[in-house]
Each structure stands twice: as structure tokens, then as C-alpha cells.
């Protein structure tokens, strides 16, 4: 068996462009790492190492065949990835940490740098922290467990909640959906599994924090959230990654089901290192009068391709997507959203905001689709782009497919450069040019910031400030 022990990483902290606040690396002693590259043997080996049932092993192997059969997407961003030069599985500890004390010291140090224990003390309900490929630490408040809420990592769910998981797993995003969904299906590891029973409303956000922390380490987490009838949940994932000099791949799949009268909000703040390909498939199905909201903030990465989707399956379903992208030197954010109206009187809204600076490129790519019979549906799309300098770029690719007459579709797009008049106004009040630009950018993304939980809002503002530093010459 081709296994080797991960050496203690003292990864280079060479900057490849810009300051990254989380540019630190904690030495890791991994216990198992699959050999580099991907083939059916590796896929089978991952399944074996995880001790999975036969059905999951078969699922992975079929998904691998689909992955191999699909061409690379010929749209979006420029993906120059060598799939054989990536590690697909790393298991850092042999057992899951049950309490904070059980978590290995170096992993704790990493979390401490990220402020996790403190955040947890303050208000976290449960923390699922994914360190490399496996969830190493998880806690869930007892009252949630008493209500029948399941919040665990997806690997554990395969073992402990097989029937529930199998009912939904890969039904929203099947492996043949796209090449990267197929890849994730073949090699997935970790991610969150959440089930909220009927009528249970969780008042505080459930959070997950994870990061990639091994050179050349792909991360393929798989998240499945099931919000049963009349239930409510807000799930928050934030991730930060240290910087590496070789290319790395993050390709997640997130599936959400929101049943009748349920509500789900899924908030993501991603700040990837500037060498990471972030290719994520996120999709939710919302049933009768259910509400699904995606709040999606993308910073960093070399290329992000991510289009959170809401399929409105039954009458009265609603979908809202708030997306923000910040691109700088060497970065391409190809981000957007999809609304698919499959039933009458469904309504959707997309608000997309992008900021490009120092030669960065942000693209909005969105789909608004109304299927035959979805009468009385309403969709609105607003996308605003802010370009900070002449070297930077913004594009808009709105796709609208309507197969029904009695519908209302609105699309507004604006592209603006930071106005000389706005800068002058703020500077005439004593703000420096950099402070003025930063203030205009903060204002531009305010609609997203105010949707975030307090700590994430503060964090997001700090990240934006860091991104803005030195941006004005």
C-alpha cells in the first residue's frame, strides 16, 4: 500500500504577491497520506482507509469514472491543473477529538491563531473544524442533541446515520453534474452533515472553520444539510489558508435540502491563498414556501469558480443569493449565482458585488431560469462591480432562460470606478486617499457585511482593509 508519513512541514512563507494575515503554518504530523495523484486504486484506498460500506466505495469508483470521462470546462477561468500532482487524502489523526483536550497540540495552536477557542466560548453552538482532510474536533451543545439535531462530519454520518444520509447524498448534486463534482464524489473527505428535525429553530449560527494546511494538498469536503419541515438553521463556514508556492486545489460539494416552510441560510467567507484553485459546487433545493439563502464572500485564491444555486421546487419557494468577490493581482473570481424556478409563484433574488484591484479580474456569471409552468414567478438580479484601477477588469455574463410567459424578471448591472468626485469629497474632509478608497469599498460591500454574524463582519472588514493596503499609489 502506498502510504507515507507526512513530514513536518516547514512550508515556505515566501510571499507570492500580497500580505496574507493568516500566512502562518503549523508543523503537522500526519499519520496517513495517500500517494500523490489519482486513479481507481487511490479512490478504493481512500474508501478502505475510512472503513466505508460497500455502497460508498462503489459510489466513489463510479464517480471517478465519470470524472475521467468528462472534459475540463471550456468556460470560466483558466484552469491549469495537473491532477496527478495533487494529494487527495490525508488523515491527520487516527481518531476524532471528542473534546478540546483531545485535539492535538499543533492543531490547537493553529486554531488559537485563528481565534477559534475564544469564538467558541463566546457563542458557538458547535464547531466542526476541518484540519486537512478529516474532521479532528467537533462539539455540539447538548440541547441541540436533545432536540434531535445532528451536526457531525460527513464521514461519521456515513457510519452513524447511513439511512438518512443515503436518502439525500448526491441527489442534489449527482457526480455527473460537472467534472469537479465528480472528482469530489470520488475523493471526498470531511465536510459537515446537518439534520434539523421538523419545527426546530436554531437561534445561533452553527459554524465550521477549516483550512488547507499541507503543501499540494487538495481538499474535497462534502457537506449535506437537511432542514426538515418548518425548521430553521444558519450555517457559517469561514476559511483561511496559509500561503504556499505550489498550486493547490479546493473542490467542495455542498448540498442543501430545505423542506416545506423551512429556512436555511448558508454563509461562507473564503480567503484562500493566492495559489489555490477554488472550484466549488453548491446547490440547494427549496420546497413549498421554504427559504434558502446563500451568503457568499470570496477573497483570495488564484481562480474561484463558484455559483451557489437555489432550485425552487414547489410553490412559494424562495431563493436569495448574496455574493461578493474581491480580486487582486493574479486572481480571477468567476463567481455568481443560479436561480431555477421549477414551480409557480416562486421568487428569487441575486445581489452580486465585485471589487477588482491591482490587475485582478472579477466576473459575474449568473443564471436565471424559469421552467414551463412556473407561473407568477419573480426573479431579480442586481450586480454591481467596482473597479479600483485601470489594470483591473470586470465582466458580467448573465444568462436568462424563460419558458413561461407570466413571470417577472429583472436584471440590473452596473460597473463603476471609484469616482474622483467621491474621493475628493472624502479627502476634503481630511481622509487620506487610501482611507477614502477603503471607506468607499467598505460602503460598497456594506449590504453583505450587515448580513454576517458580528465576528465575521469584523473579520471581513479587516480582510478588506488588508486587501486595500497599499492599493493606492
Amino acid at each position, binding site marked *: 500500500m502506498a502510504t507515507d508519513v507526512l513530514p513536518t512541514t516547514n512550508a515556505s512563507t515566501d510571499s507570492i504577491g500580497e500580505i496574507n494575515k493568516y500566512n502562518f503554518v503549523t508543523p503537522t504530523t500526519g499519520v496517513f497520506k495517500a500517494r500523490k495523484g489519482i486513479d481507481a486504486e487511490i479512490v478504493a484506498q481512500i474508501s478502505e482507509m475510512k472503513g466505508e460500506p460497500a455502497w460508498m466505495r462503489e459510489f466513489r469508483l463510479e464517480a471517478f469514472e465519470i470524472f475521467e470521462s468528462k472534459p475540463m470546462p471550456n468556460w470560466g477561468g483558466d484552469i491549469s491543473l495537473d491532477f496527478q500532482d495533487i494529494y487527495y487524502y490525508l488523515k491527520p489523526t487516527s481518531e476524532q477529538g471528542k473534546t478540546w483536550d483531545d485535539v492535538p497540540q499543533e492543531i490547537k495552536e493553529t486554531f488559537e491563531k485563528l481565534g477559534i477557542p475564544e469564538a467558541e466560548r463566546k457563542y458557538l453552538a458547535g464547531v466542526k473544524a476541518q484540519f486537512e482532510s478529516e474532521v479532528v474536533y467537533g462539539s455540539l451543545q447538548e440541547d441541540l442533541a436533545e432536540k434531535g439535531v445532528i451536526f457531525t462530519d460527513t464521514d461519521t454520518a456515513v457510519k452513524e446515520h447511513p439511512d438518512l444520509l443515503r436518502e439525500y447524498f448526491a441527489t442534489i448534486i449527482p457526480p455527473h453534474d460537472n467534472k469537479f463534482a465528480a472528482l469530489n464524489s470520488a475523493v471526498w473527505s470531511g465536510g459537515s452533515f446537518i439534520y434539523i428535525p421538523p419545527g426546530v429553530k436554531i437561534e445561533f449560527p452553527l459554524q465550521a472553520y477549516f483550512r488547507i494546511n499541507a503543501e499540494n494538498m487538495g481538499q474535497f469536503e462534502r457537506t449535506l444539510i437537511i432542514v426538515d419541515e418548518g425548521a430553521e438553521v444558519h450555517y457559517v463556514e469561514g476559511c483561511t489558508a496559509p500561503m504556499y508556492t505550489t498550486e493547490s486545489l479546493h473542490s467542495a460539494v455542498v448540498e442543501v435540502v430545505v423542506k416545506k416552510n423551512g429556512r436555511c441560510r448558508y454563509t461562507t467567507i473564503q480567503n484562500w491563498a493566492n495559489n489555490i484553485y477554488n472550484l466549488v459546487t453548491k446547490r440547494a433545493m427549496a420546497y413549498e414556501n421554504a427559504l434558502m439563502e446563500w451568503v457568499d464572500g470570496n477573497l483570495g485564491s488564484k481562480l474561484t469558480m463558484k455559483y451557489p444555486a437555489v432550485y425552487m421546487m414547489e410553490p412559494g419557494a424562495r431563493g436569495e443569493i448574496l455574493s461578493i468577490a474581491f480580486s487582486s493581482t493574479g486572481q480571477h473570481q468567476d463567481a455568481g449565482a443560479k436561480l431555477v424556478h421549477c414551480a409557480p409563484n416562486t421568487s428569487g433574488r441575486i445581489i452580486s458585488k465585485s471589487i477588482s484591484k491591482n490587475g485582478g479580474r472579477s466576473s459575474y456569471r449568473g443564471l436565471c431560469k424559469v421552467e414551463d409552468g412556473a407561473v407568477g414567478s419573480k426573479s431579480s438580479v442586481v450586480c454591481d462591480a467596482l473597479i479600483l484601477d485601470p489594470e483591473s477588469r470586470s465582466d458580467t455574463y448573465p444568462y436568462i432562460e424563460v419558458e413561461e410567459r407570466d413571470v417577472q424578471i429583472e436584471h440590473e448591472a452596473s460597473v463603476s470606478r471609484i469616482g474622483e*468626485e467621491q474621493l475628493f469629497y472624502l479627502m476634503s474632509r481630511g481622509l487620506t486617499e*487610501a482611507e477614502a478608497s477603503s471607506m468607499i469599498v467598505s460602503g460598497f460591500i456594506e449590504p453583505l457585511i450587515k448580513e454576517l454574524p458580528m465576528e465575521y463582519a469584523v473579520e471581513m472588514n479587516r480582510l478588506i482593509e488588508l486587501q486595500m493596503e497599499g492599493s493606492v499609489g
Partner: protein
Amino acid sequence: MTETLKIADLHVAVEGKPILRGVNLTIRRGETHALMGPNGSGKSTLGNAVMGHPSYEVTGGTIELNGENVLEWDASERARAGIFMAFQRPMSIPGVKMADFLRHAATNVRNPDRKEGADLIPMREFRKELKEKMADLRMDVEFARRYVNDGFSGGEMKRAEILQLAMLRPKFAILDETDSGLDVDAVKLASQSIAQISQETDKGQEMGILIITHHDKLLDQNTPDFTHVMLGGKIVETGGVELARELYTEGYDRVRAAHPDAAKLEAELQENDAVAV
């Protein structure tokens, strides 16, 4: 020594077109100057040039603050040196709350050497002061939470400009048609507020103000020590309060007749209405 803002033989062009053609004007702290003149004569251009708008190119002459060359400073440095302009049409900054903007601005202006990222005025102290100034202007506290000039009515914008004047306490203030778009009561309140703010002393000195206006109301409360008439990019006459009274009752026909060269330049400027002057 009385602090002085001195403008000498100032020439300003916008997009290559000359607008100001040799303006001379000296303002001492404690003095109130009225600047009048027909639309398009260059009044706002003078304000923008003094404040340092990058689109207003100074092609000749000097602007000095207590003998220091203001032209070397950007707008931010001018503000921190004590120069202020109340905008005729203030810009909206969506998503930025008035209170956050003002706290940042007041901190920088009061502590001109502050490094970026250094502490702001303590929140409690700032809030108390802001609340008092807003009460003086009969502004609702809710106003502080609104986005800068975003969706403000004309009157609200002008009041917000006066609030900034009150918070930033400049040495010299240019008020560019701060009375336009206001109803009678609002003009009265604005006039009283400006009079009160400009008479507050800082190290024994009052504010020096330049009021650009077409009306008499603002000047009732802020009696000008000097009235200047601008025509064709130059100050063609200077007098006392009686000149202001004459102009807002009689108009500019006498001035045009007395200064035919400037009147001719004014007519040419009027044709260039693509340029905001």
C-alpha cells in the same frame, strides 16, 4: 498674528479651458466675505481650486495659508491644515454611515499628523459631541446612522454640510451655495448655525468664511465685511455689505456694463456649459 488665506493672481483651467483669470482675494480669520456673481462666473471653481480638486488645474498664481504654499498639498492635507468647503452638491457615499465618516474626518482634522490606522477619537466622547451638534441643527439622532448623503433631500444635504463644518471647526470655510434648495425656515436655521459656528473662537481667533450665495438670507445673519463680485473668472468689484444688497435686489446689469471685458469673457464661459464652473 491673524491667520490668513491669501489667493493671488490665481488662474485655473478645467479640461484645458481657462475659467479663473487672475483672482486676488485675502481672507483673515474673523472676517466674513461674500462672493457673488452670475452663474458660470467661476465662483465654484474658486472653491474647488482652493480645496484642491484634482480636475481643477492651477495654471498660474498662488494660494497661501499663513505664508505656506497650499498648492503643494492634496485635498486631505488642506483639510487637515484647516481649510473646509461646504459643497454645493455633496457626493453620496453609499454604505458609509455619517457617524463613521465624521468620526474619521474629525480625528484626522484635529490630529493632522495621525498615522493611518491609529486610534480614532474615543467613541463616547465623539458621540456626545455629535449629538450636541446635531441637536443645534435640529437633526434627528437617526441621521448619524444614515449613509453619507445617500437619498438625502436637498435640505438634508445642506444641513449635513453644516454639521461637518461644526464638527471639523476649520480655520477657513468656503460655503458654496449652502442656502440653495432650502425653504425659508431652513435658510434661517442654516444662517443662524453658520453665524454661531463661525463665531466660536479657537486660540482667540474666529473662523474666516467665504460665502458664495445668490440670496440675502444667509448674509442677514452673517453680515459680510467684504462683498466681492465675480465676472468672467475675475473679481471685478469689492465693497461692503451695501454691494451685496445692491446685487441681490438689482442684479448684475450695472456690473456687466461697468466691466465690458469681463462681461465678454463671461458670455464665452456660458457657451462652455459642458464644464461645471
